[in-house]
């Protein structure tokens, strides 16, 4: 993804601290009153000019949320979150821009600084650079979506969620909440009540989306939660590849990010969803950073459909995230490829669920956890086969790499086979970057930092190979940056 390449290169030259995206944009913003109540929900819905059914849906979720408790099973520790001390909506002031020309120049400058290409004309002018359509989400709203018209010609709908609710309510209504129900879990229910913006993608039957789609999420405001909601629908035989990137300013207080992503793939459809998550991880002492409590799930609803999650997780103070696939259609395929890097005092509890309901469904999991500093890195996964799901196969590989004496890695795989004809394989390893490996590389003249990067890149190679080419190079660099100063 060129956006990421530019992000890394450009921001590297800015060279602030170890976290290169930590600047804040000083822009006047419109916020909901602090705290959460029915009024907050109504405020958000009204701000977005939503139809009544949407408001009712939100209110239902809010009432449900009041009865729920925060999950505590994850291997992460943090002070109790005061949900009344958060702003649930923040948007740059002023009327919504109708085109790129109307977007606040300061916002454009922000994205420019992050290396996210928003100016279509310039992107069109660039010959060698592959084109990527971008939806840029700033705090609670989408500020601009590029290449919308061109995509529409191909039949692909790509726009902000708010816009989709207004323009294509029948599609949204048909699919929203059908993969991650309103009642799913504490954070998903919270998201359903107060979700602000996110992306909506609809690829009609038989259409192969002509370009990569991507969303770039940015949290800017202080004390503000970001509750993005993304819905991707691929009709029969459709194909789309979607990339997501995230950054936030360095702030002393923690920021909450509780997103929901839903993917629906009908017969023979394929969706690839790649994430580079680089939220602010907190400082060296573990102060600040984003709480990334996210529910992502895909539904292989049709026969022979396929959903692949690829994630490179380097940011956030705490990550609680399990991109999953429900394999409902016969012969459908689910994949989860993950690299989770933690350093400093970061805590990661991430993994996947592969729920095999259809016959001859297959899933593959490759998880690579790298823990450095004082961080803790847990893989948690559930692979299950329904009683009638015969011919099911899963292959799981979970590898952990420890750097330094104070980091920790855990692997918690659950396997539930309800029929005797499911074939599940699980491999797991935990290794330390060996002193012998380091010495071997250094004896060949390779400096210590470069040697660590070389060994780590070897460790994550099978996942990196799943990423689009130009994206892979960037992911490797990002991992290198995250591990800077982890040795010596």
């Amino acid at each position, binding site marked *: 993804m060129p956006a990421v390449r530019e992000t890394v290169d450009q921001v590297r030259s800015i060279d602030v601290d170890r976290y290169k995206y930590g600047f804040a944009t000083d822009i006047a913003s419109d916020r909901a009153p602090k705290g959460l109540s029915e009024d907050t929900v109504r405020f958000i819905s009204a701000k977005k000019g939503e139809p009544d059914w949407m408001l009712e849906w939100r209110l239902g979720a809010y009432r449900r949320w009041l009865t729920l408790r925060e999950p505590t099973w994850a291997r992460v520790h943090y002070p109790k979150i005061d949900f009344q001390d958060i702003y649930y909506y923040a948007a740059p002031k002023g009327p919504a821009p109708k085109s790129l020309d109307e977007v606040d120049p300061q916002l454009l400058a922000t994205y420019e600084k992050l290396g996210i290409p928003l100016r279509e004309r310039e992107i069109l002018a660039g010959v060698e650079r592959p084109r990527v359509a971008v939806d840029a989400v700033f705090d609670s709203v989408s500020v601009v979506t590029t290449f919308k018209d061109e995509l529409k010609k191909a039949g692909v709908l790509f726009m902000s969620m708010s816009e989709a609710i207004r323009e294509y309510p029948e599609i949204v209504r048909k699919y929203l909440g059908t993969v991650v129900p309103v009642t799913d879990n504490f954070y998903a229910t919270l998201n359903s009540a107060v979700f602000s913006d996110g992306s909506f993608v609809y690829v009609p039957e038989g259409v192969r989306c002509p370009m990569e789609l991507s969303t770039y999420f940015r949290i800017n405001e202080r004390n503000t939660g970001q509750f993005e909601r993304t819905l991707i629908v691929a009709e029969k035989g459709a194909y789309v590849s979607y990339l997501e990137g995230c950054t936030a300013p360095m702030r002393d207080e923690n920021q909450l990010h509780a997103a929901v992503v839903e993917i629906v793939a009908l017969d023979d459809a394929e969706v690839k969803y790649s994430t580079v998550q680089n939220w602010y991880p907190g400082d060296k002492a573990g102060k600040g950073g984003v709480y990334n409590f996210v529910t992502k799930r895909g539904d292989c609803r049709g026969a022979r459909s396929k959903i692949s999650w690829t994630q490179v997780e380097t940011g956030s103070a705490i990550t609680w995230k399990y991109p999953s696939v429900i394999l409902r259609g016969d012969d459908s395929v689910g994949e989860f490829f993950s690299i989770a890097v933690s350093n400093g005092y970061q805590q990661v509890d991430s993994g996947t669920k592969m729920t095999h309901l259809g016959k001859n469904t297959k899933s593959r999991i490759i998880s690579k956890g790298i823990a450095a500093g004082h961080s803790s890195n847990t893989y948690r996964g559930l692979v299950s086969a329904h009683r009638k799901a015969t011919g099911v196969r899963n292959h799981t590989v979970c590898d952990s790499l420890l750097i330094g004496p104070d980091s920790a890695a855990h692997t918690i795989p659950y396997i539930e086979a309800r029929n005797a004809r499911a074939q599940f394989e699980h491999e797991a390893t935990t290794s330390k970057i060996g002193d012998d*490996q380091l*010495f071997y590389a*250094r*004896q*060949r003249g*390779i400096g210590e930092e470069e040697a660590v990067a070389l060994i780590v890149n*070897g*460790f994550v190679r099978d996942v990196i190979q799943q990423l689009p080419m130009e994206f892979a190079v960037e992911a490797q660099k990002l991992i290198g940056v995250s591990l800077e100063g982890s040795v010596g």
Partner: protein
Amino acid sequence: MALLEIRNLHARIKDDGREILRGVDLVIERGQVHAVMGPNGSGKSTLAYVLAGKDGYEVTEGQVLFDGEDLLALEPEERAQKGVFLAFQYPVEIPGVAGMTFLKTAINAHRRARGEGDLSTPDFMRRVRDASDRLQMTQDMLRRPINTGFSGGEKKRNEILQMTLLEPKLAILDETDSGLDIDALRIVSNGVNALRDPERSMLVITHYQRLLEHIVPDFVHVMSAGRVVRSGGKELALELEATGYADYGSDAA
């Protein structure tokens, strides 16, 4: 000035304080090949590790000059960049890192240390192909993760390949013959002999005389209990072959 001067070198294991090297003296001039022989535990491999800068050893006395410079003050990668190469007795596996990638990283690290730019891919490929052909290594082997799942012979050939491409001033071969059958031994030895050069010195560590039939040394030293106790010409190796190490004790450490 000699290329390598080891003076009264004492070193112990950091963890338990055991003294392994107890006053090693050794001078190697440019272009010379020296063999160090001795019973197991006499300190041969420790000498190689201390020269290369492996962690876990503490030098308590003595000095090592390389090209007149204090070698012990340098980091392992700096020693390598200045021309010290150690062919490992047990080459280390690095999963997922292709041999090609490793080689290229190493070569470019050397080049950068000399203030040169990175090698272009075609140049790199050409050099690798020439060197690997001579060692009868396939390109497939180089695409595989380095040393991972390699046979003993493949690992040793891979060491000599790296040595060929990194062009060291001093090559230390630590028990390079161990684990090699006779064919592999010949290939590896030919590879080493091809690198003999008036500007390149070698320190060949071995337990057996066998290797020295293929790599003929200019000098042979016998180590025992952490010191060089006897030095001579290549005929010393033959004498040892006949008498064994009995006269030199097995080991004190």
